[in-house]
C-alpha cells in the first residue's frame, strides 16, 4: 500500500531544482516510476514529498551533433530510444539494448534517466553507456557538473547524486572509427534483468588489426556495473584472436564479485561472465572490422 505524500509536478528544470533543494531529504523524484512505484507499493520507499518530473518536456529529446555526439534527455522514454532512427543508424547497440529491456509497456512510460538514477546493478543501459564512454550531465541550483557513467553508481541503488541535484542529460561521444560495440544479457525469461550481462566495445587501429581500445563492462555481477580492466588489458595493443578473447573471458570472470542468490550460484555467474565476454567480444570485434 502506497503511503500518502505531498505531490508536485514541476514543468521546468528550474522549478524541479527549487523543489528539490527545498524538500531535501524527505523527497523523492519520480519520472516514469517503473522502478520507483514497485518499491513504493511494497512500502520500501515512502517519501513525504514526491516531485513528479515526468511533465518536464524539455528533458525529452534525442539530438545528434556531428562533433559533440549524441545527447539524450534524461526523461526520454526507453521506447523512443529503441525506435529512434538517429540511434539505430549511429548507435545501434543502444536500440538493441532497449529492445531487450523489460516490456513494451515499461519502455513506453519508463525513462532512461530514471533507470540510471535507480542504479540497479543489473540495469541494462549503464553497461552499454559505459562501454560507449558515456557521460551524465547533472544540474542543481548552483550549476552543472558532468560525471562519467562509469563513476555514477557507487553501490546497489546508490549514485553520486547529491540532494538538490537532477540528472538532465546523457552524452555519448561519436565512436572513433573502426569501433564496434555489442551487448547481451543472460536470463531465464526473455527481457528479464540479466543474471549476468556484458557490454564490450572494441576500437581497432585505423591501419591494421591491432586493438587500440577495449572496454569490457559487466552488469549484475557486482554492486555496480563494473569494468573488467584486467580483462581489457589482455586485448589492448594486440591483434585479437579467439584465444585472446577466451583468455579475456577467463580473467573477467575472476575479476567479478557475484553473489549466490535465488537465480544462480556465484560459480555459475562467473561461468556466465566467462562465456559472455568471449561471445560479446567476438561480436564487438566483428562490428569494429565492418565499421
Amino acid at each position, binding site marked *: 500500500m502506497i503511503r500518502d505524500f505531498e505531490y508536485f509536478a514541476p514543468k521546468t528544470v528550474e522549478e524541479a531544482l527549487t523543489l528539490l533543494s527545498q524538500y531535501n531529504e524527505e523527497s523523492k523524484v519520480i519520472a516514469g516510476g517503473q522502478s520507483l512505484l514497485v518499491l513504493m507499493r511494497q512500502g520500501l520507499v515512502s517519501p513525504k514529498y514526491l516531485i513528479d518530473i515526468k511533465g518536464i518536456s524539455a528533458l525529452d529529446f534525442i539530438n545528434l551533433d556531428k562533433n559533440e555526439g549524441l545527447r539524450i534527455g534524461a526523461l526520454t522514454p526507453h521506447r523512443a530510444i529503441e525506435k529512434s532512427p538517429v540511434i539505430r543508424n549511429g548507435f545501434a547497440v543502444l536500440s538493441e539494448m532497449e529492445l531487450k529491456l523489460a*516490456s513494451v509497456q515499461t519502455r513506453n512510460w519508463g525513462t532512461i534517466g530514471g533507470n540510471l538514477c535507480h542504479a540497479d546493478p543489473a540495469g541494462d543501459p549503464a553497461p552499454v553507456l559505459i562501454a560507449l564512454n558515456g557521460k551524465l550531465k547533472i544540474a542543481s541550483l548552483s550549476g552543472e557538473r558532468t560525471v562519467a557513467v562509469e563513476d555514477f553508481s557507487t553501490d546497489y541503488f546508490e549514485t553520486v547524486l547529491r540532494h538538490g541535484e537532477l540528472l538532465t542529460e546523457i552524452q555519448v561521444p561519436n565512436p572513433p572509427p573502426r569501433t564496434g560495440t555489442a551487448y547481451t544479457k543472460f536470463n531465464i525469461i526473455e527481457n528479464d534483468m540479466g543474471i549476468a550481462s556484458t557490454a564490450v566495445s572494441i576500437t581497432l587501429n585505423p591501419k591494421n588489426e591491432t586493438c587500440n581500445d577495449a572496454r569490457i563492462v559487466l552488469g549484475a555481477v557486482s554492486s555496480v556495473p563494473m569494468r573488467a580492466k584486467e580483462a581489457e588489458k589482455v586485448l589492448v595493443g594486440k591483434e585479437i584472436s579467439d584465444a585472446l578473447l577466451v583468455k579475456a573471458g577467463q580473467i573477467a570472470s575472476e575479476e567479478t564479485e557475484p553473489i549466490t542468490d535465488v537465480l544462480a550460484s556465484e560459480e555459475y555467474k562467473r561461468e556466465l561472465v566467462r562465456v559472455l565476454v568471449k561471445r560479446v567480444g567476438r561480436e564487438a570485434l566483428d562490428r569494429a572490422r565492418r565499421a
Partner: protein
Amino acid sequence: MKKELKLTVNGEPYELWVKPRTLLVEVLRNELGLTGTKRGCDSSSCGACTVLLDGKAVKSCSVLALQTNGGDVVTIEGLADGPNLHPLQEAFIDHWAFQCGFCTPGQLMSAKALLDENPNPTREEVEMAMNGNLCRCTGYNMIVEAILATAQKLPEEAK
C-alpha cells in the same frame, strides 16, 4: 490532499479528485467502475492491467493517476464498438486465445497497440511485443495465432 485529475476514458471526459498516491488502475476500477482492467500481480510483472494511454500500451498499476492528467485512456471496455466486437476480440474467440480470461483484457490492449503501430507484424514481432503480458492458461501460442490472424484478415483502416 486531493488533486484534480482530468482525463478522457473510452471517449468520455472525466473530472475527478484523487489522492496523489492513487494509481491509474485504481481510478479505472474504483472511481470509474471499469473493472475489465485487472490487477494480476501487484509487482508490475504480469501486464494484466495494460491499457492504452495516448495510444501507448502502459501498465496501469505502474502509472500514477495524476501523471495521466489531460490524457486519453482506452480500456478493454472501449475496444468493442457497441455490440460489435473488435476483430481482435473475435479472433481471440475463434483461436481459443483465452481460458480463465483474467489476463485477456491486458493481452487485447497490448495486441491493439501492436497492430495500431505495426499492422503486419511477423511472428517474432508479435512475440516480442507481447512479452509483457503473462498468461497461466493458454501457453501463448493461441494468442499469437489470434493476433497474426487479425493482421492478415483486415486492411489497416479497420484496426
